[in-house]
């Protein structure tokens, strides 16, 4: 099975939605909503390669390098990073700002808002709320935008490494 990653599905993904794998848990309802949006464009081989069979067997290490360079993987990675980097930076800055303000400007934090509730209380509760919100957003993003593509890559990669090991021995 010397197919490059991301290229062995000729038809649309819907034709073959299930993998024969015990770990593959039934997907949450959200999967349907993403039809198209989350799916990677099919049929994009990572790079032009010789037809199967004319090539010397590769080592497993080369498989990972090849997958890493493939467009499908780069897309998964950039989707992951495009969410994690800004969201991570945002909550970290917000949290550090909270801690630094609490200790350098206690007067600001003590300013009453409503009754006994002051700015500091609201900021503290706000930290809880943003954490819940970001958790939900991350889980949703991963489920809709990354899971399916990552799973495809996983099987492709495992197929390739198996092929490489078999060929080398």
């Amino acid at each position, binding site marked *: 099975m010397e197919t490059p990653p991301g290229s062995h599905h000729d038809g649309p993904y819907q034709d073959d939605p299930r993998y024969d794998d015990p770990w593959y848990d039934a997907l949450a309802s959200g999967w349907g909503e993403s039809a198209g949006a989350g799916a990677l464009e099919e049929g994009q081989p990572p790079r032009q390669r010789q037809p199967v069979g004319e090539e010397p067997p590769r080592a497993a290490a080369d498989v990972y*390098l090849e997958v890493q360079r493939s467009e499908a*993987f780069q897309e998964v990675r950039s989707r992951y990073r495009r969410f994690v980097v800004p969201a991570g930076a945002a909550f970290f800055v917000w949290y550090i700002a909270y801690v630094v303000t609490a*200790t350098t400007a206690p007067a600001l934090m003590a300013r009453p808002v409503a009754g006994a509730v*002051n700015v500091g209380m609201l900021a503290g509760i706000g930290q809880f709320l943003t*954490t819940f919100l970001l*958790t939900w957003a991350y889980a949703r993003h991963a489920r809709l935008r990354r*899971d399916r593509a990552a799973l495809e*890559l996983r099987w492709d990669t495992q197929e390739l490494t198996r092929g490489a090991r078999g060929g080398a021995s």
Partner: protein
Amino acid sequence: MTGDHQTLALLLFSSFVAVTLGITTWVGRHRQGSVEEFYAGGRLFSPMENGFAISGDYMSAASFLGISGLIALYGYDGMLYSVGFLVAWLVVLFLVAELVRNCGRFTLADVVAARMRERPVRIAAGTSSVTVSVLYLVAQMVGAGSLVALLLGGTTDAARTWTVIGVGALMVIYVSLGGMRATTWIQIVKAVLLLGGTVALTALVLVRFHGDVDRLLRTAAGRSGHGDAFLAPGLAYGGDWTSRFDFISLGIALVLGTAGLPHILSRFYTVPTARAARRSVVWAIGLIGGFYLMTIVLGFGAAALVGPDAVRASNAAGNTAVPLLALDLGGGADSTGGTVLFAVVAAVAFATILAVVAGITLASSASVAHDLYASLRRRDAEPRSEVAVARLAAVGIGAVAIGLGLLARDLNVAFLVGLAFAVAASANLPVLLYSLFWRRFTTRGAVWAVWGGLVPSVVLVLLSPVVSGSPQSLFPGLDFQYFPLQNPGLVSIPLGFLAGWLGTRTSPEAPDEAKHAETEVRSLTGAGAV
């Protein structure tokens, strides 16, 4: 305290111990003794089960007793712990949980060693994992000790000593006989008990104030003797710049430390896929977030109903605020309700300590057997079963934790946990993040990152006012305090990252592109994951 409290609390606690021992033996019957089974419980837990178990592992006695106590004594400043402990989970969710599940097998060192020369990396990461775990264990032991001191009237040192020893012995039994599977079920049972107890107490506090949070806060502020200052930052960490930097240092350590805690990382290996790991973290964030919101209510409730003076009189560090609050909520010291509620809270706190302690012991015995022993034993030596070594390690770690727990018994448990977090964030987090995300990272960088975070953080704690030079120190009579902050995070975490960067830059070897590709592909796709 009256005899009724003691009897009932001991009864409830004994039944918890009986149940957990039952779980351990029941699980032990089906044990095959494989490494997979011992460290990862067979990897077949569901996200919800693991989410509860993660919460059980994380919501320690330090949170339940320590944070509420700090809020009861210092008001707003105690809230920082609640916020930091929760926000930290975003680091875990975003950067660590799924990737670690995909790349590793049992320990933190697995992830790093996959890319690097195995031996030096395992020795370094194994040592730092054990150090963090032992610090964290000590905090739990101290919590157990002060609970018993409260239960038995606080005068008998012998009872306290025997409790710490008893807790240590139980945790060794759980871990060495039941492995990860028993530990996980104990965590789940404990998480349910703890959440149930916390919900009940929170509801009672709110009912007492007729749902009027404003009045709760005002009463707490009035009773504290500080007025509105009680509701604003500054009571514990205000004043001079040293304590302000201490506050910032603690804040950074809390948010970055969780992702480096070995016993939290090892929980991700108990589920089948990265997707399941992510979903368990989402569960955990929901449970933990709810719990910490409730500890805030309990803390202010204790300040309002019990009063900081009474809390301080019972335990100077505030560790007994919640049991005292329960006594009051039930109707006072001489009522049946008070007795029952107090006993329930004490038993839940014990259960919490036992469960957390079991989780940490398991993780550290994995580090000893899987990382240190496997790297350090002589090549020609008869290879002993790794599980047998892990069981022995659990006994050794138990002994060390008992000894240190007896020594450190007068420190606030939440504060001790803050130290463990600082060491985890300095020694474990940099190497983990560099391995997962930095293409040029090398073996030397990895080794330097661990030692460059571990050594400064431990040395700074030794030179800090925690150990010597002030009346509250471990050794009040000595004075070798050269570092002003109680929490080393502000200095040692950047040092860990810096050391990793320097080590990589000065490294003579070229970074291994293929290994990096393998780590990156595996971490994001799960290819080849066990």
